Structures are given as C-alpha cells and as structure tokens.
C-alpha cells in the first residue's frame, strides 16, 4: 500500500523551513521544489492548491541577460537567490527545467506564461551547446560563453532538449532552429556501450541511458537506433532487475549483492538495487518497447521492492536502499516509478501526465 498521507506530509515538510545542512543544496534549491511539487501532483491534487500563490516567488528566479558575447538576449532560471547577482550570467539548464515543470503544475497558464519569454530561453539553450554537440549546464558568468569548467554529458543534453520541448519545439525542424541536432545525435551515438545501454567510455549506466533515450524520444529520433543496439539495450536493462531466484542467488561473495534487493533495479552491473534506478530502467524500457515493456519485466516484484523495501512507512518518503533514510530525490523517483506503471506520469519529461505541455 502506498502511504499517501505520509508521503504528502513528507513532501510538504520539504517545502517549509530547511535545516542548515541544506545549505549545500542551495545552488539547486528549485530541484527540491520540483521533486516536492511534482510528487504532490502525483499523490494528491488537492494538496496543490495551497502552492499556486508561490508562483510569484518562482518567477523571482527568472533572469534575462544580454551577454557581451552574444547578440541574442538569453533567459533562464537560477536555482535560488544565492545566485541572484546583477550583471552576472548565473542561470543554468537544470534549474530552468525544474522551474518550467513547477510552473506547468502550479501556474494555470496553459504552459504559456506572460512572465517569461520562451524565445530567450531557447537562445540560452542554444548558447549552452559546445562544438562536439554536447551541452554545458551554465555559462561563464562574466562573458556568457559556455563555462570552461562545467561538465558536459548526457544529462545536460537531455535537459537542453527537454527545455526546448517545454518551450514549444515539437518537430526536428523546430529543434534544428535552436541547436545543432545532428552533432548532438552523433554525440549520443558515441555514448552507446557494447553490451547495450549508454554511458561514458563503455561503462553503461541506467541514468545516462534514460537521458539518452528520453532525448531521442523528445526529438522524435528513436528510429536512429539500430535494431541490434535497441535489442542489446532492452536486454541490458532487463538484466538490471536484481533477483534472488535461480542462479542469481549464487553471489554470496559479491559485496554489492543483497538477496533482499529482489525485484529492484540497479544502475550498473554488480551494484545494489536503488529506488531511482527503478525509474531510470523502466522509463528506458517503456521508450524502447512501448507496447510490451510491462510484460518483458516483472513489474509487480519491482513494485514490491518499492513498497516493502524503500518506502518509509513511518516517516513517509522513499529511500535509496532499504538501509538509508528517505530523501526528497528518491521519494519523487519512487513515486514517479509508480506513476509510470499506472500511466499517471510522462516518463521522458518526468512530469505528471496531467500537467505535461500540450
């Protein structure tokens, strides 16, 4: 049973006053708001109305700039007032996506708010693309050029594409107006791993795999996958479901194997099962096999893993594994996994379907 009331309270608590240890999350505070608001939207619609008034506070994170290096005006969101610095380009891709999702849920604006300029946001995304097709998540705050110290990987590629989707891009031609899709696709392809899945330098990772497949889906480019790689990836993903039956129990000497993880998903080979990978794996499987992903894997056992092992029945929330304390990130991804299974969540945008952009 899903402890709905307790989860609602858990999420609401995270929107109140936070203790000093949350300082380390200050730069990406809108992430906490996103997980909590989107989680509430999945659990209890009626709990949301209390937060419509907070939209003006969200809009306070919206910033526009005329960077010296670019003739086009750019715009996006900062993660918290920590980054509100006049004249400094401090917006980043992650917080821009978080804000767009939050606003789609709490601001009844049909996805089109008069307070923000989608064209300028798309210019920002365009500015974050670097020559090899990848994206940085932030710009040099002084020049507005792509930051030289930022990592570039599939996460930011995904976020860039998702932002363009939220701000109206639906066709390949649309996307091409703002980013170089071909070089992005070439980069995504370079991250394909030999046994299926995506990752850096041949180590496949379920999180990167979900990012890659979600962005291909949003771009309408799933057909770019070869049949062989598609099938390798399906097999690789199914293989991430941890089991204690058959020969799988013969791993007593594996330090990262736990019989109790049965039914959960791991992010990589020979790792413990983890709540968030249930989402990353199922979302990937759904994209690759929309018609029979639910019969290919054992979704009921995956659900049991979430309900019985990582759901905190006392405090509410979900934890990473059965030995951790619940946290906001794993709580949302636990709920998102359940939402994916019952059809109430759009996996490639990771937003409740009711609030997905039209």
């Amino acid at each position, binding site marked *: 049973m899903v402890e709905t009331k307790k989860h609602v309270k858990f999420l609401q608590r*995270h929107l*109140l*006053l*936070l*203790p*000093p240890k*949350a*300082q*380390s*999350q*200050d*730069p*990406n505070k809108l992430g906490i*708001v996103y997980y909590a608001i989107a989680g509430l939207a999945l659990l209890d619609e009626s709990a949301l109305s209390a*937060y419509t008034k*907070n939209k*003006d*506070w969200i809009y*306070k994170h919206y910033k526009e700039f005329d960077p010296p290096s670019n003739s086009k005006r750019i715009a996006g969101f900062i993660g918290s*007032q*920590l*980054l*509100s610095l*006049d004249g400094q380009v401090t917006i980043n891709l992650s917080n821009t996506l978080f804000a767009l999702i939050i606003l789609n849920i709490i601001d009844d604006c049909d996805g089109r708010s008069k307070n923000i300029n989608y064209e300028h946001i798309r210019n920002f995304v365009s500015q974050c693309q670097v020559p090899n097709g990848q994206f940085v998540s932030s710009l*040099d*705050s002084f020049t507005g050029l792509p*930051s*030289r*110290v*930022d*990592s570039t990987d599939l996460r930011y590629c995904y976020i860039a594409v998702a932002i363009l989707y939220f701000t109206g891009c639906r066709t390949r031609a649309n996307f091409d107006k703002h980013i170089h899709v071909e070089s992005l696709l070439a980069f995504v392809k370079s991250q394909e*791993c*030999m*046994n299926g899945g995506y990752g*850096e*330098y*041949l*180590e496949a990772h379920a999180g990167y795999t979900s990012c890659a497949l979600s962005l291909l889906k949003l771009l309408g480019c799933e057909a770019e996958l070869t049949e062989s790689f598609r099938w390798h990836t*399906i097999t690789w993903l*199914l*293989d991430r*479901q941890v*089991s204690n*039956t*058959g*020969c*799988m129990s*013969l*791993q007593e000497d*594996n*330090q990262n*194997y736990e019989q109790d993880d*049965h*039914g959960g998903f791991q992010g*990589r*080979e*020979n*790792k413990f099962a983890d709540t968030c990978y249930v989402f990353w794996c199922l979302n990937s499987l759904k994209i690759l096999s929309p018609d029979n992903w639910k*019969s*290919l894997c054992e979704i009921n056992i995956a659900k049991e893993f979430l309900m019985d092992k990582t759901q905190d029945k006392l405090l509410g929330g979900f934890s990473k594994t059965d030995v951790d304390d619940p946290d906001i990130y794993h709580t949302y991804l636990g709920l998102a996994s359940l939402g994916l299974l019952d059809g109430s969540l759009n996996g490639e945008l990771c937003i409740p379907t009711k609030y997905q952009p039209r």
Partner: protein
Amino acid sequence: MMSEFDVSLYSDIEPLPIETGLDNELCQIMYTDEYKQVIGIARRLISNGEFSERALDLTSCVIDLSPAFYTIWNYRFNIVTALMAVSGDIEAFLNKELDWLDEVTLNNPKNYQIWSYRQALLEVHPNASLKRELPVLEMMIDEDTKNYHVWSYRKWCVQKFNDFTNEFQFADSLIEKDIYNNSAWTHRMFVLKNLTSNKNEDNWNEQLKKETIDFEIEYAKQKITLCPQNVSSWNYLRGILDKYFDEDYTINGIDEFAIQYIDNIFEKNESELTETNSTNLPQLKSSYALQFVADGYSRIPDKKNMAIKAYKSLSIKYDPIRRGLWNHMISKLSA
C-alpha cells in the same frame, strides 16, 4: 578544513547578502552565520569582478561550504587564469592549484564538479602529465572502487595523454581485489578497444592485435572459471566476441567452454523442461553461461532448438525473473 577564513582580509568589502524572507518563499534554509558571512563577501567579489589572491582564498572557503555552487567554480577558474598570467611561472602556479584540488577531491569524493574543473586545468597546463594524476586517482578508486566519475576521469586522462601502458595492469589489480567490479572490467574493455583501434596501427600490427585479443579471451575464461555467476566477466567475453568476431559465440570452441556450466540441459526433452518438473533439473553454477550459449546458438540455424531449450530452462528455473525476456526469445525463434 583546508582554508582558514580570515575575515580581516576583506574588511573593505561590504557583503552582498542573499535576499531572504521573500513573500511566499519555499524551502527557506536556516543559514549559519558562517555561511552568511562567507557567501555575502563572495557575492560582492564576483559582482566586482575581483581576480585576486584573497578572492582565490575565499572561493576555497565557499567550495568547502557549497561544493555544488557552479558559479564559484567558474569564478575560481577565472581568477586562476588571471593570476597565472602574471605569476611569472604558469606551470608552478597551476601545480599549486592542482595540489589544492587534490585535497578538495579527497574530501569530496562524490562531487562531480571537481573532475570537469580538473580537466579545465589540465587543458591550460603547459606541461601536464598523466603521472601527476595517477596518485590521487588511485587513492580515490581505493576508497570507492566503483566511483563512476573517477573512472571516467581516468579514462579521459589516458586518452588525452595517449598512454595506456599501465591500464591493463591497473584493471587487473582491481579485478583481483573484487572480481565483480564492473568498472574495472569495462575499463579493461576500453583499453583493449583503444589499443586495437586504427589510431594505434603504427605500434600494433595484426599479429600483436590477434595475440592480445586471444589473451583477453583466455583472461575472461579464467575469471569465469573462478566465479561463474558474474555478469561482468561474461559481458567482457561477449564484448570481445561481438566486436572482433562478429557475434560468433562458437569460435575456438568457446561454446564448449560455456557448455561445461550447463550440465546436459540439451539432452532433456521438452516434457522435462516445464515449471512443474523444474525441481528435478540439475543445479547449475551459472545462468550467464546458459544465456551465452542460448544467444550464440540462436544465430545458428541448425542449433535453434538447442537455443530454445536453453531459454526455456532459464525461464523455468535458472533465471525466472527474466522469463518475459526468455519467452520473447523463444517466440522469436519459433516464429
């Protein structure tokens, strides 16, 4: 930790505090006094565009408090490039910066901002070397043997310096420690793929390439013998066969090697391969061996029936959680 915060250095700076107590604010953080003070000064220095020694010291304090603060990393890099230009000795200046970063790295193993910052430093360093990077990488991997960012950075480094000399041995030492370490196995594959790629044609003639690949197959087999139910070593073997042998899982009698782990499953008739009879089937040491043979045989027309039997046994006994997959394979072969 590493940077003592000395407020007297900044007595001329009027802090720029974070605006709080806004209407309808969510997730308000109870900032500590230290955080408010350090961040207030840092925000002012960034706004002023001050690139100085004291600004460098301050970013170090901010990074201690908030390692995910991307603007500070970017600011620090700007300070470093400004100061190194006037330092008179760019190399010494950047080495000092790398020393500082080593310490931050060891204290924040999970922070991924560190690695891209490190890459940026190496890109501007006039005399960067792999040797300088190896000790901190070894310490980090020692502490967390599957840390994805550390492994990625190591691979970025060996590729940048095109120096793969230590890498087989390094992967081997980690596999020796934990045969299930998938990062070590995929590192080995990364090394093999790079060494045998066309880029390395000068040093790698066909004979050496063949010997290396043969050696790696033997290596995988030997590790499988030690621990047959290990997905990483089987995936390594499959990777080699997929890449170099066009997915042929029967070359050099390698199917015979796998078959020794699956008893005489192929001799069972169909009525024996049922769920109700599954308790009478033998105990096997490796479902991966069975899957390997099944996948290999499914591509050979006259061995399809054996493949079906193998998938069937996986489904009913040896790896039942994936029966959806096995049944799908069976119906594909039966079609």
